[in-house]
């Protein structure tokens, strides 16, 4: 009995010791050799095939370099990115969110400054988009990748069926919605269950025409006006007018349901982003698009066209030269064309001309180039969301509670202002 007990104890100790080292060693990075593989992480899991086609073009031009596209689910991306950069296992090329989202990554020291490495950023991209990934003193840390436009999709078949015209003013738009509803159609594929939709594709899409668009946004950032300004209350009340055209039980409809409803032809219109065009094309739906309706005829349209995502270069990369080559290629018109055509609805914010083959995508971007249109961005993304309680979080809650009828417009804007008062308006 004695010896077997000792053996048993030793076995237990041995096994537990083995467990401690059972983690396994990390695979060493194989540098050198034929192919350099650059890891490229993103939050667009829906683009895997398209990105691979785009990046294959790069490999054709530079045969020694292969791009491995590794997207992570949108809602996990920020956490995964920060963790991977902190622990040194981040990808070589990383997608950066706009403004403070990307700024955080730069401030933490994870990415290179790109002013010298990719010299044509300043000259070839729109000023707004360059500023989205640059510090106040002009240090650029991200290549603007693509911009999004938000507006109103409509089902071409439904419009043809009722011989409807694209509305230019708000009253025309409401009248159109009313007539569709009377004919028994589901007018808008909308719900209030998911918060970000309410600000990004509702308030800051049709709202800007009522709160004063880009000028007001700048005034808010500069502290000239407060969020409790009557302009915002007006915009809130305007979007409330659309709630009667939402499907029944809209409070439980989330983003994916909205998307699927429109894709399946179950709703006539959908106020959403240009980025949906890829999914729409895959679903084979015939669609049209119009910009947000203005208040009265002759008003300038405030069109939300904002740089959404940029690319950064991980300081911990082991293939700096190859990664720089890739980024330079991304900042070229050749890539811009590829992107615009492979990912219809995403628009590289380049000043340089590039080809767009999809007619609807062309239509979307041409609205931005009209003389009576100003482009604007999301209200809270620049500077106002730098700290908690961020303007965006406050706004998300306010719009949701307002549209659900829990709060009045006044209560909603006061809540946001109160939150911002705790840190922004010192």
């Amino acid at each position: 009995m004695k010896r077997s007990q000792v053996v048993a104890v030793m076995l237990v100790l041995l096994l537990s010791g083995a467990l401690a080292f059972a983690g396994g060693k990390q695979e060493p990075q194989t540098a050198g050799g034929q192919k350099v593989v650059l890891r490229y992480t993103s939050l667009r899991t829906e683009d895997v095939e398209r990105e691979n086609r785009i990046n294959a073009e790069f490999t054709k031009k530079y045969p020694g370099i292969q791009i491995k596209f590794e997207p992570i689910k949108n809602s996990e991306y920020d956490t995964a990115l920060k963790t991977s950069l902190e622990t040194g296992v981040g990808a070589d090329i990383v997608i950066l969110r706009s403004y403070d989202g990307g700024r955080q990554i730069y401030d933490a020291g994870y990415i290179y400054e790109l002013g010298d490495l990719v010299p044509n950023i300043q000259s070839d991209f729109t000023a707004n988009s360059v500023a989205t990934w640059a510090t106040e003193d002009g240090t650029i840390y991200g290549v603007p990748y693509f911009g999004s436009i938000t507006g109103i999709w409509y089902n071409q078949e439904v419009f043809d069926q009722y011989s409807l015209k694209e509305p230019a003013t708000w009253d025309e738009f409401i009248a159109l919605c009313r007539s569709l509803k009377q004919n028994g159609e589901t007018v808008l594929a909308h719900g209030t269950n998911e918060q970000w939709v309410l600000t990004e594709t509702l308030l800051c899409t049709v709202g800007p025409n009522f709160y004063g668009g880009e000028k007001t946004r700048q005034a808010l950032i500069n502290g000239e006006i407060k969020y409790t300004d009557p302009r915002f209350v007006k915009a809130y009340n305007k979007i409330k007018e659309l709630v009667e055209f939402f499907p029944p039980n809209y409070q439980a409809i989330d983003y994916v349901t909205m998307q699927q409803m429109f894709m399946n032809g179950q709703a006539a219109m959908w106020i959403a982003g240009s980025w949906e065009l890829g999914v729409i094309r895959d679903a084979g739906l015939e669609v049209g698009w119009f910009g947000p309706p203005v208040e009265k005829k002759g008003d300038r349209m405030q069109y939300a066209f904002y740089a959404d995502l940029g690319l950064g270069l991980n300081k911990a990369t082991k293939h700096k030269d190859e990664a720089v080559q890739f980024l330079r290629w991304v900042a070229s018109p050749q890539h811009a064309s590829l992107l615009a055509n492979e990912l219809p609805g995403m628009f590289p914010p380049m000043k340089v001309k590039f080809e767009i083959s999809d007619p609807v995508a062309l239509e979307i971007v041409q609205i931005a180039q009209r003389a009576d249109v100003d482009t604007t961005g999301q209200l809270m993304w620049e500077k106002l969301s730098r700290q908690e309680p961020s303007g965006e979080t406050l706004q998300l809650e306010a719009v949701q509670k307002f549209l659900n009828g829990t709060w009045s417009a006044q209560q909603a804007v006061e809540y946001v202002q109160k939150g911002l008062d705790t840190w922004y308006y010192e």
Partner: protein
Amino acid sequence: MRQRKIRLFLIAYLLPALTIYTVFMILPILQSMRYSLYTGTGIRPDQFVGFGNYVKLFTQFPFRLRFFNVLKNNVLFFIMVSVSQNVFGFVLAVLLTRRFKGRRFFRSLFFVPTALSVIVVGFVFKLILNPVWGVFDRMLRSLGLEALIRPWLGDPALALPILSLVTAWHFVGIPIIFFTAGIDGISDDIIEAGRIDGVSVWGEVRHILLPMLKPIIGIVTILTFVGNFSEFEIVYSMETVYGNPEYATDVFGSFFYRTAFGTVMNNVNDVGLGAALASIMFLIIFVGVLFFLRITRRET
């Protein structure tokens, strides 16, 4: 001599598990408590703020709104799950310990949902309750109960109860297993004695089962309590990490996730604040467990 050998033997067996447990569980908890005294946006918070994070959570706008909201939601969630999962589980356990054909089959059947992953359960129920094409509404319509249809996951008053019912359905197997084991463990003599005295089923439950199963009720309650207060996945899969709608399903887990790691729309994160929240969670759960242990202690 024999005592010493047994003691060494025991230590040798306990030491590996104790070491691993300390390194991977105790130390991180202590480290987390240390982080709660700091703030910062990196993975490791670096600015010392003392108890500032705790003060923030309890007093500052809008953090205190979120904090007391999640506290309230967690308490409500726990109560609702306790009733629907444990009380109902107890009833089922009593039924499953009566003698009838197929008894063993039903015992296994009730445990099948527990084998499913929480995310899967959440997503499936979310689809079932979908207002546009979910089968639940369709079923109500076919039964002529259209008037009862609501935006299930969109109504702030209904969302949390629904989440508790889903959780209860998912985990009802656990109290059933515990209680059936406990009831089976009660010596037959006592049951026989009760029968001879002419006790009814309800009487049997009240006078024999409940008192004898008190420690097991305690364990089940504690497990439910710990699980509910650290709940995250069901909220994540059914209502996003924001605790939609209108923060009605926001619980400690989701609030912690948003605070410590940031979210899609708002990448500002504060690991220190999250750690403070986690420490508070730990304290609440710890106190709660002690409380339940005390009141369900078997009087010997």
